């Protein structure tokens, strides 16, 4: 267990810059998830931490020590790959023990370490099998065992769950979280799945096109996204982002929604910070999570006085089982709401809905950045 510092790291392939100066500090015992759409550079960054890809510029430090020039095996890191990367010609036992064999650990000691890890991961019965004789979940566990046996300073995971089917993925996700809680290990985990990021991370680094867009706790990214891209990337169904006008209304502000031939909808806002007040009289983009909308019968949120009643028309109803997703038309704009499963609504119905404005966020329409 050790800290990890990524300091101004850049990666260039010829003239193309795929990582444009990344700064992230991971404290010992943290679970950092690198998330972003494919091609954002998250896997490249992970490979650079592992040492299997070169660093064009900047510095990576493990436990305060520069590792740029160190061979992967000298960095004291372990990596779990998307394809598991198990050696097909070796048994489970040999796979797990390979790194110790390469480091010339005596055989009795090696076997003892392998057995200990096999016990933790319930692989004892499979030690003599080859990877081709294992199921996907078992291979996944062997890959984890190979990382665990080295007792590394940092664990790296490169989309380890994306080759598993949906059920197993959820189970293994829980396993990885348990492992982190038990070992208090420092983990860097790459995924493109925002749910994995939300559930596993102590902190999330969201990347796009080689840039770090936001680094923060899952709650920060979810409730206070730094820009509209983060806002729509995190959360499913995604946050509704709608253009609106901030108008002064007495002492406070109000939000005006109007598009097309629909009548104007005006929503009085709870007290706002000065940064938002500065936008009075101007266009903004407002972001509202689907769960902040409820239908009349059940007030959403904590009842802090940030609830507003609005009139909306139902456009589409999508039952998912535990919830029903409803697309509403409010003032000519479409908002998604997460409502309870058995609803008495039909497409085209007009009804009263409650908006909880506690976590309402405002974005500057020109820069698409959070106003805060």
């Amino acid at each position, binding site marked *: 267990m050790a800290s990890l510092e990524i300091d101004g790291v850049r990666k260039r392939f010829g003239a193309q810059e795929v990582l444009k100066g990344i700064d992230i500090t991971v404290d010992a015992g943290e679970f950092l998830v690198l998330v972003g759409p494919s091609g954002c550079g998250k896997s490249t960054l992970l490979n650079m931490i592992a040492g299997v890809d070169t660093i064009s510029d900047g510095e990576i430090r493990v436990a305060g020590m520069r590792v740029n020039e160190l061979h992967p095996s000298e960095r004291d890191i372990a990596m779990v790959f998307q394809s598991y990367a198990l050696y097909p010609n070796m048994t489970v036992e040999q796979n797990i023990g390979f790194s110790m064999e390469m480091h010339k650990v005596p055989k009795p000691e090696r076997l003892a370490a392998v057995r200990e890890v096999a016990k933790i991961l319930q692989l004892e019965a499979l030690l003599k099998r080859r990877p081709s004789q294992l199921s996907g979940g078992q291979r996944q566990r062997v890959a984890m065992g*190979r990382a665990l046996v080295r007792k590394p300073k940092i664990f790296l995971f490169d989309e380890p769950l994306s080759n598993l089917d949906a059920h197993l993925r959820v189970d293994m996700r829980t396993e990885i979280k348990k492992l982190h809680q038990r070992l208090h290990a420092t983990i860097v985990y790459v995924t493109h799945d925002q749910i994995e990021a939300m559930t596993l991370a102590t902190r999330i680094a969201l990347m796009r096109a080689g840039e770090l867009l936001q680094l923060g706790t899952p709650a920060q990214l979810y409730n206070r996204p730094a820009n509209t891209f983060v806002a729509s990337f995190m959360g499913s169904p995604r946050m509704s982002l709608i253009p609106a006008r901030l108008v002064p209304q007495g002492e406070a502000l109000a939000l005006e929604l109007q598009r097309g031939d629909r009548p104007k909808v005006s929503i009085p806002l709870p007290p706002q910070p000065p940064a938002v007040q500065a936008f009075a009289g101007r266009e903004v983009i407002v972001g509202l999570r689907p769960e902040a909308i409820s239908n009349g019968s059940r007030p959403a949120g904590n009842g802090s006085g940030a609830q507003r009643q609005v009139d909306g028309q139902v456009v589409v109803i999508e039952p998912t089982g535990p919830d029903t997703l409803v697309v509403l038309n409010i003032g000519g704009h479409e908002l998604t709401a997460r409502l309870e499963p058995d609803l008495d609504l039909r497409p085209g119905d007009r009804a009263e809905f409650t908006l909880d404005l506690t976590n309402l966020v405002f974005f500057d329409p020109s820069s698409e950045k959070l106003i805060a």
Partner: protein
Amino acid sequence: MAKTWETPQMVQGTGFRWSRVVVYGLLVFFASVYILPLLVMLLTSFKPLPEIYAGNMVALPRHWTVEPWVNAWTTACVGLNCNGIKGYFWNSTKMTVLAVVISTGMGLLNGYVLTKWRFRGANVLFGLILFGCFIPFQIVLIPMATFLGRMGIASSTTGLVFVHVVYGLCFTSLFARNYYVAFPDELVKAAMIDGARFFSIFWRVLLPNSGPIIIVTVIWQFTNIWNDFLFGASFSTGESAPMTVALNNVVMTSTGEREYNVHMAAAMIAALPTLMVYVFGGRYFVRGLMAGSVKG
């Protein structure tokens, strides 16, 4: 489903068809065309000379004899030496085994570097290696003779091994490179993180998973080198000649009566090793050529 599709298998299962008679007839015909020369050679090699001169090449021998085989091995005249072909057989064996092992090993190493340790210009280099596959034998004869002379290994088995390794390297590198290009990079990365270095990654991770391509390369190289005549005739003399050259000298002798049975036996002995390689490795050959095209 509105329509049931007839697959070729289903058509076959529906009973007697004239088309199948035609197909099998043609297959049997062509198979016999191909097997006939081998049959004639084998029958001739087990016949005494008078029977051969009596005619009818495809008739079974009336008196079976292994004497032509023994003669070919021990007393047949190669040029002016009448010690049989056994010495030349060993020449060929030594030359082929050495050249196959060296060229295969180097080719695998080339393929490994070209795919897993990519460097600036790797693709250009691979293109040049590929180009080497298209150089005809005849072009290299004279420069190679000069080179072997300067190196002091002309007219020796060492020289022939060198020629075959150089010439075969393009093919073995091509085979290995195309096999390793489909070999997952993640395994190499995993091995690096586990602490393996350049040669231990090759030795412990790539080589144990290279069975099919090693067999393809060995069969290809073995048959080419064993069967080569041009390099053997150009770069060897007398006692150091390989089997193919010796066989030619046995058959082309102009003294005495032509011992067709001994010639055939010698030719069979010359062909036997490649035949064995095909018998034991043939099924892996097809499998190896297919490897990478289908997952599994």
